Every structure is written in structure tokens, then in C-alpha cells.
């Protein structure tokens, strides 16, 4: 893609040749529809952002950000969304910490080793299958696995021999699966774009493959990997289904056991997405104002991540063509 960006002329695919000026009615309609589609997209995005901005400014207050949610029908007493905010952050950190190294590892194996070829092909399609699996299916699969008694150290034993199966640990592990394909894809693309002679230069200096990967290829693909991780974080922040099933989507974060940090991770909680879901007209909370405020914060996080991606891709990386 980057190669195309450099060779592409600013005039589009057909470039200098203007083409015929005879436009049939069908072509005119098609052209108008193309303009219409492009402008419609801009309008939809603008409408979403502006609407959320207005509602967000209307309903968001600092108090909401820093108070715990409380049960109760009276909206003035039901608190804010400090716990969901913490939940979103914690879950994103856990899932990213798992997805980033695993994803980069898989990408490195696929591009640099990839032997035997049939296994590499199978893994490649396997990553696609994971990417296409609905997150709700991943979620209830996770519940099935982590309710086995041997995994009770990740949450707690609900009844003897059966784990509760819902905790930050567990939700983070399954959440990492939805970020994984994005990390693998972006890292592979970045590794592919490192030209062969760079590798050969490193081999000629007597480095073996793994140190070439560590010292040359991974630093050179930093930006691609960063993009993939940021994209993955966006997916994690925005996912609701896994949180509903595997984090319990409780009102407050509910630590288990006595150890402060570990107890939090073994406990249940909620994130901004489930907070919005539960406070929307379909949920139990039924407080659209708070749903709007939380959704606005969520949208800000997502837009922030997009900015990060923009900065990463715009920044100057190693240029092999110069």
C-alpha cells in the first residue's frame, strides 16, 4: 500500500488521460450516485460525531467521571461511571498485554519461518477464522472453558469443582482474541515491507535469524505493529458482548478475595460499553442521559486511538527506498 501511495499520481486511477466527454444517462446517474455515496458517508459520520458531542456536553460532568455507580431508580442518586471507566482501562491493558506479543510472534513465524508451508497456510486461515468469529460466540466459548474447576484461580469457585468463570482475567484473555488478528495482519504487512537485502545484510554480518528479527526486523516494523495494536485496542474498548458474558457486567467492580490487586482482576465488573447498554432504553438502568455521557467518553477514547494511529502512520519510519 505504501508503495502505491508513492507512485500514485494525485489525479486518480486514470490519471492524465481525460477520457471521452460523451456521457450516457446511465453514466451520469452512476457518477451522481458515487458523489452521493461519498457525501452521504461524510454526513453520517458528521451527524454521529456532532450528535454525540451535543449530548455529551449536555450531560457529561466531572462528577459523573469520578463517582461510583449506585443502585437506585432515582437518577440523581445512581452515581457516575468511575467503575466502568476503570473496567475499560483494566480490560484493555490486560487484553493488549496478551494480544500484542502473541500476535507479533505469530506474524514473525508466518513471514520469517513459515515452515512447513502447509502449517503456515493453515495458521494463516486460522487467524482469519478467529477474526471472523462473532465475539458473542468467543464469549460463551470462554465461559464454557473457564467454568472448569481447574481454572477457578482465575475467578473463584462458585460451587465446589465449578469455577464462576467471570472475571477481568478471563474477559481479558478472550478479549485478546478479537485484537489478535488485527495485530497479526498489521505486523505481517510491516514485516513484508522490509526488503530482502536488509535481511541479507544482517546475515552477512554473521547474525542468525532470531537476532536479525530482534535487532533489525522488529525495530523496522515498529510503526506497523503499533498501528495493529492501536486498532486492536479500539476493538477491545468497543466490544460489549464479551463483557456482558465474561465480566458479569455488574454495577460496580466487585473484587474477590483479600489481595487488593489480584482480587480486582479475579473479580467481576463492567466497562463503558456495558454501562451504555444497561442504561439505554433496553437495559435495566434506564437512564439515557448517563448512557449518552458514557457513550461520549467512549467515543472520545475511540477517536483518540484513531489519532494515535494517524500519528504512527504519518511519522517518519525507516525508508528503504531512499
Amino acid at each position, binding site marked *: 500500500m505504501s508503495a*502505491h501511495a508513492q507512485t500514485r499520481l494525485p489525479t*486518480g*486511477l*486514470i490519471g492524465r*488521460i481525460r*477520457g*471521452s*466527454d460523451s*456521457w450516457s444517462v446511465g453514466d451520469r446517474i*452512476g*457518477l451522481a*450516485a*458515487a458523489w452521493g*455515496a*461519498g457525501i452521504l458517508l461524510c454526513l453520517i459520520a458528521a451527524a*454521529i460525531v456532532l*450528535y*454525540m458531542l451535543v449530548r455529551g456536553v449536555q450531560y457529561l460532568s466531572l462528577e459523573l467521571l469520578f463517582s461510583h455507580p449506585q443502585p437506585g431508580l432515582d437518577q440523581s442518586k445512581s452515581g457516575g461511571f468511575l467503575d466502568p471507566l476503570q473496567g475499560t482501562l483494566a480490560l484493555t491493558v490486560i487484553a493488549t498485554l496478551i494480544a500484542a506479543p502473541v500476535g507479533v*510472534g*505469530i506474524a514473525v*513465524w*508466518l513471514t*520469517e*519461518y513459515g*515452515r512447513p508451508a502447509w502449517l503456515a497456510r493453515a495458521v494463516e486461515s486460522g487467524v*482469519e477464522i478467529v477474526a*471472523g*468469529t462473532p465475539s*458473542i*460466540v468467543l464469549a*460463551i*466459548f470462554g465461559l464454557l*472453558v473457564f467454568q472448569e474447576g481447574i481454572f477457578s484461580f482465575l475467578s473463584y469457585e462458585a460451587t465446589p469443582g465449578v469455577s464462576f468463570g467471570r472475571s477481568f482475567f478471563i474477559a481479558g484473555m478472550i478479549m485478546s*482474541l478479537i485484537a489478535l488478528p488485527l495485530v497479526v495482519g498489521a505486523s505481517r*504487512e510491516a514485516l*513484508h515491507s522490509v526488503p530482502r537485502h536488509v*535481511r541479507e545484510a*544482517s546475515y*552477512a554480518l*554473521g547474525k*542468525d*535469524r*532470531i537476532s536479525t528479527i530482534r535487532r533489525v526486523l522488529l525495530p523496522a516494523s515498529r510503526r506497523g505493529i503499533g498501528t495493529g495494536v492501536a486498532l486492536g485496542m*479500539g476493538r477491545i*474498548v*468497543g466490544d*460489549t*458482548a464479551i463483557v*456482558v*458474558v465474561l465480566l458479569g457486567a455488574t454495577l460496580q467492580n466487585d473484587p474477590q478475595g483479600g489481595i487488593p490487586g489480584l482480587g480486582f482482576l479475579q473479580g467481576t465488573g463492567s466497562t463503558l*460499553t456495558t454501562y451504555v447498554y444497561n442504561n*439505554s*432504553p433496553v437495559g435495566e438502568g434506564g437512564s*439515557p442521559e448517563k448512557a449518552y455521557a458514557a*457513550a461520549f467518553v*467512549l*467515543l472520545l477514547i475511540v*477517536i483518540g486511538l*484513531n489519532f494515535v*494511529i494517524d500519528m504512527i502512520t504519518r511519522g517518519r519510519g525507516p525508508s528503504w527506498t531512499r
Partner: protein
Amino acid sequence: MAARGPQTAQQRDRTDQRAEFLLGALASAVLVLIAFMIAFVFAKAWPSFAHNGLDWFGAGGNVDEQLTGIFNSPADPSDYVYTLHAWPLIYGTALITGAAVLLGTLVSLLSAMFIVEFAPGWIRAILQPVVRLLAAVPSVIYGLIGIIVLVPFFGNHVIGPARKESVQYVIQLDGSSILVGTLVLTVMITPIMIAITVDALRSVPRNWTEGAAALGVNRFRALRTVGLRAARPAIVAAAILATARALGEAIMLSMVTGSVAFAPNPLDGVTFFFEPTRTLAAQIVEGAEGLSVKPFGQTMYAFAALLLISSAFLSFGGWLARRSMRKYTLAPR
């Protein structure tokens, strides 16, 4: 990677082999995971399929009542109720997914052509972040806007009282409908399709389209007849990926489609578009609280098994389509 460099010490060679083995094991874990997922989910779902046989996929009775019956099964395992005819859910899923993918394909082809060829520079500069933003907005936000803005709008202003009365003994029309679901879902899946189509159109060799233009057709036709045709495998891949994405959308659809296990009837004419339904994925989210009731949980896993197998086939198909394209160097990686 035949180039191994000059002979190094045996020890370093072994480090390299160990690294290859470890990374390979990590990558293979993905395959193990998929195998486990299919095995676990199907094993758990089996009773529901086994009790109903092929009727599971058929129509008959009210799904909501059947699910309540399953949920309230007697405690004795031999008395578990499993009777379910899931057709309305399957039909609702297929209807919304199919409509959204068709609409999305049309919109994404037009916008991709617009981005690649016709948009002035400044609009193109806006469109790139716009597409990325639309792809990144969480589904719960789409759902929130859908249920607070679109559903009341359709319920109060578009669907007239006469139309509501015409089906009031069958179903309530309050605006949550397959139409709203399809529209919002289209907005959600279009960005992926645009991204893939734009990449493919840009990698069509310039002299093909330039040649067409030089032969005297206008730019729109050159792009449509040569550019889009060369990018056809990518478009197919995009549609397949979008279908997989749409199949799995649970939260937004459970919010805006009314969440009634009802099979909209095309014979109702225009009213058809305003009828509510429920998709498989949305059903699982809504049934999540009852997963601990054994027969009910097993039924939910049966829905998950159906989704899992269809999305796995779709992803595999998309992967094959894109692989076959690499021969022509039109592949989005």
C-alpha cells in the same frame, strides 16, 4: 529464506531452532484453539440438535414461548424440555445480514470509485478519516443512536396508525424493525468493504484503465468496466468478510430490531420493513443470563454452533478468495 549467512557456532544455531520451534508452537496454538472451540461448542449444543432433529431448523410455534418452556424445564435431567423450531431466528438473521450486505456492497462500490477517481483532493482527505471513524465507532453507540433517535422517529412519524392497526393482533410496530436494523448495520459494515475495495482499485494497473480511457470511453465507464471488473475478487472477499461481521453483530441488533422472535412476512407489503425480528447473535446476548440453566444454556450453545460454523466457512471463503487474487497481484494482504 534460504540465505542463512555464514556458518555460526553450533550453539547459536540451536537458539535459532529453538526460536523457530517456539514461535511455530505459538502459531499452531491458533489452530488448537479453533479445534477446541468447535469441539466444545458442538458438544455442549448437541442435546438441543439431537432432541429436535431437522425440526430444529424448521418453522412452527412461537420461539419465545418455546424458549420460556426450555428455561422453565423441570430440574430432573430426564425431563428437560428441548423443543425448539428456530426458523424465525435463522430467517431474521439471514434477512438482515443479506439486506445489509447487498446495500453495503452498492454503497461501498460507489464510494470506493468516488474515493479513487472522482473525489477532489480535499474531500478525499476528509473521507479517509471518516471511513476509519465509521469502522471504529463501537456497536453499542450505533445501537444507542438507533434506539433513541431512529426507532422513535420511525415509530412516531413514518409508521402511521393505520399501519399499526393493520397488524396489531400479530405484532406491535413501535419503530424497532428490520429496516432500522438493516440501515444501521449497513453503516457498520460498509467501511471494511470500502477499505478493501479502494485498496484493490488502486492496485489495478494504471495502464489498463488509462487504456480504456484512451480508447474513448468516459472515466466513469472506464472505471466501472475495467477497474471494478479487475477488482472483482477483492469485492467478493469484501462482501464475504462483511457478511461474517454482520452475522456476528449482536448488541446493536438486539437494541434496535425489537427483539421479538418474529418472522417478518414479505406478503405484508411495505409493513414488512417495519416488522421486528431477532437475530441468532442477539438471541445469545439476551439469553446470556440464563446460561446456567442447563437445557437453556445448551440451546444457546446450539445457536452459537450455527453462527460459529457459518462464520468459519465465510472467513475461510474470504481467505481463499484473497489468496487466489495474489496471483494477479490485486490482493489486499
